[in-house]
């Protein structure tokens, strides 16, 4: 992974009438990274993707794709980008074979053989119109079209939406294979946090139209921890931690904190005068829930 940004979002704002969907969003997707953009439904992920692909003009700010304005240079940039949209959008009357034939002339590095191999692997019938394929098969066709262009940037907008576990697994396997082979930069928006966690390098979280997190997954996992401690007769405080959620249990207290460090843990132990302090790691899903969910007591 080099430091060069393939995609650079700068002070992006998108609104639909009076409703602001994105406000002052800025981040960069470094070359070779797998960038997971997370957020709840309606948090503006798809709007951001549309702006990134030059499909939608933002109200303010902009997106630079390969160093150029995504809106102004969309056509040139799209030759280097593979896209798997949230809703498979290929013309429903065309078969998978016809779709490959249609797209092939537009891309200089088109790999038709690999695309056809993929379709065969996914058991996509080549002569059935796209509109009559199953949801999983449609997703597979869109991924095959995206990867056949040998893209420098792969944009996956909630690619596992509506897929069953097998199809989801197949998609991630394919993605991992592609990443291992070519090191393609990937921007992925998803609700499938378990699926993306093993491959994501960097995570950004949208909440309330704004970006509330943007860092490497390792850094995120290092600062988000679950802390448990036994009952204590002394007056209790989570300081120096800043709990995002906290609650009392039969066996003691529990909190999720977002500013964990070993130094703070030492200070906390010293303050509580207790050896019964347990620190646990959080999954990406738990971190996401802490960031994007409603703060409050842990259940």
């Amino acid at each position: 992974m080099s430091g060069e940004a393939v995609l650079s979002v700068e002070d992006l704002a998108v609104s639909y009438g009076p409703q602001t969907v994105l406000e002052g969003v800025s981040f960069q997707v470094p070359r070779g990274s797998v960038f997971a953009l997370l957020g709840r439904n309606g948090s503006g992920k798809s709007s951001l993707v549309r702006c990134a692909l030059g499909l939608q003009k933002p109200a303010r700010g902009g997106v630079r794709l390969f160093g150029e304005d995504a809106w102004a240079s969309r056509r040139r940039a799209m030759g280097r980008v593979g896209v798997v949209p949230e809703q498979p959008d290929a013309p429903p009357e065309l078969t998978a074979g016809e779709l490959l034939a249609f797209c092939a002339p537009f891309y200089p590095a088109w790999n038709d053989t690999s695309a056809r191999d993929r379709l065969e692997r996914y058991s996509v019938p080549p002569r059935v119109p796209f509109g009559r394929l199953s949801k999983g098969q449609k997703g597979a066709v869109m991924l095959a079209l995206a990867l056949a262009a040998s893209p420098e940037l792969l944009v996956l907008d909630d690619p596992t939406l509506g897929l069953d576990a097998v199809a989801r697994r197949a998609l991630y396997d394919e993605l991992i294979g592609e990443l291992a082979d070519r090191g393609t930069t990937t921007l992925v928006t998803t609700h499938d946090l378990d699926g993306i966690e093993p491959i994501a390098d960097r995570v950004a979280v949208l909440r309330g139209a704004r970006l509330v997190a943007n860092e490497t997954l390792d850094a995120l996992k290092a600062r988000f921890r679950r802390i448990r401690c036994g009952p204590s007769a002394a007056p209790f405080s989570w300081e120096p931690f800043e709990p995002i959620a906290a609650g009392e249990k039969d066996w003691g207290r529990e909190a999720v904190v977002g500013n964990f460090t070993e130094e703070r843990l030492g200070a906390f132990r010293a303050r509580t005068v207790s050896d019964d302090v347990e620190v646990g790691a959080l999954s990406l899903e738990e971190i996401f829930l802490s960031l994007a969910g409603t703060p409050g007591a842990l259940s």
Partner: protein
Amino acid sequence: MSAVLGIARQEVSTRRFLLAAAAALSLLAWALRALLPPGWSRELGQSLALVLFLAFPIAAAIAVGSSLVGRDLAEGRLSFYFSRPLSAGALWAGKFLGGAILVAGAFLCCYLPLALSGDGIGRGAVGIWLLALVGLMAFAHTISSMYRSGSRLFALDLGLGAVLATVIVVQVRHLAIAGAGHVLLTTAALPFDVAVAAAALLAAAAAQLAYGRADARRGHVALSATVWTLALVAVAAFALWSRWVLGVTPAEVGGVRYPLLVAPSGSALLFKGAPERGRAGFSPVFLMDGESGSYVPLAPERVTFPAFTADGSAAVWVAPAVSWWWYVAPEPARPFSGAEARPAALAVARLGHGTPVVEERALEPSDMELALALDGDGQRVLLSGRAGVSLVDVASGRRLAEAPLSNIWAADFLPGGAVRLYQTPRDGSEHAFVVLDWTPKDGKRVERARVPVDPRVFLLARRGDLAVVSNGMRGKAIIDTARGAVQRLDSATDDIPGAALVLSTGLVALSLGEEVRVVTRAGDAVARLPVEPRTSVYGLSEPAPGELAVGLWTLSSDRRRTVFLDAATGVVRRVEEGLLPAGVRFGAMNSEPEPGSFASRLFEEPSGDLVTLEPDGRKRRIAGLAR
């Protein structure tokens, strides 16, 4: 280019069932028409071919246009194209090229049965059809995109569309009322209009895709802004063009065409210009003051022969009812009669004070067709219709009296309120020409003369108690109503209908094949002018008291000239080459003009230009007609 063709190919491939359906139906229609013996099945084939030709391509254009981009937009699939390295221009061109190929293909399939059976509509019409179908496809795309965007802007579009339609209707109505409605259908304006509309809609679609891309609402803004801007420009251009068309002047109409009617006194004249020399094929009827050149254009379909007052200060004519169909299929093709766009009216013109002033008044008797005579003060007019004649009050348009008299050639008001009528009644097997006096006050009718005639009879001239009719191929008859006497004169060669003039001196000049003879009311010759072989007497006039002007036209050499002679002696005074007397040649619609009047000195040049001959022999071109 390959991207454009690729998208076009995809569009055609996606909707190839349209072409297949058109081809199959076309083949069926052709087979039913061509292969089966005459009978219901062949008629079914003919009907199918016609319905197919008229309906299928229109339906195809609407279906293709409304789904070309609109469906992709509504179903969120336009992003598929914009996620590829494709320009908006290539997408637009490919989509609409594919659509045009489909629509044109469907049209040609549907047209084939008609073309094969010899009922084709011509290459020009095929071109206009194709253009119109592409325009319709673009129109369907526009409406579909606006509707499917789900934006509130669609309500504004509907409002602006209604305003635009109203403005266009007002403009078209303005043209139609002026008699120029047909130019929209019969001139080069139609393909031009269709091409401009199609181009504007296609340009709007390009703006929609370039500015909006996959964003339906943003695309809608671009589409609407382009459509309404171009529509505004088009409507403004249409208004300017309409103004230009209606602004045609007498000088532009390229020569006067008949009917040319001139007031017996004063200098008013009424004529129809040549359509091929007007503006966009429009040439109105001009009612003009020949001295000043001031004029008023009139809708041709609302003008019939006028009746003038003796002093030329007023004219009245029947403005016929015009049905809506007239504007679609003007004369001579009038396939349908329908609701009246404009009812029949009485048109009244005030003359002699510069620009003529014309106003239309409601006409009580709605079956009247022609104004026969206007009394001296312009208060009462005699109108004729199929069922009879009516005396009508000019001010109110109400009928004062009527009589069941048909086939009236002409009429004159007599002192005392009676009306003299020249008639060829068809009340028996014998053909006759009758002169009778009708008193509207008491309905009394007095027959002054009855002359048995050939069916080929024309009233050539009348003045006072004398009338001249052409009777058959060679005969002429002078009818003296004062005495009830008839003088028959025959020519040695055919002379139908010939020409005649009752001079102010009471002498009668008439053509008799090989000569023009001036005779007394008793038929005695006082002067003769030999006429060369293969030369027709075009017209006669009396430019000065006792002077006879004889217009001669040798068709073989297209030589036109007017010979001026002393009517009492036959001595030729001079010959004016290239001139012929202007005005109605026969039918004697109007009273004879007084000698020396504007009408009696009016001549026509071969170009159709009008000149008057001044007493000193100088020619004076009619103001307003000079080019």
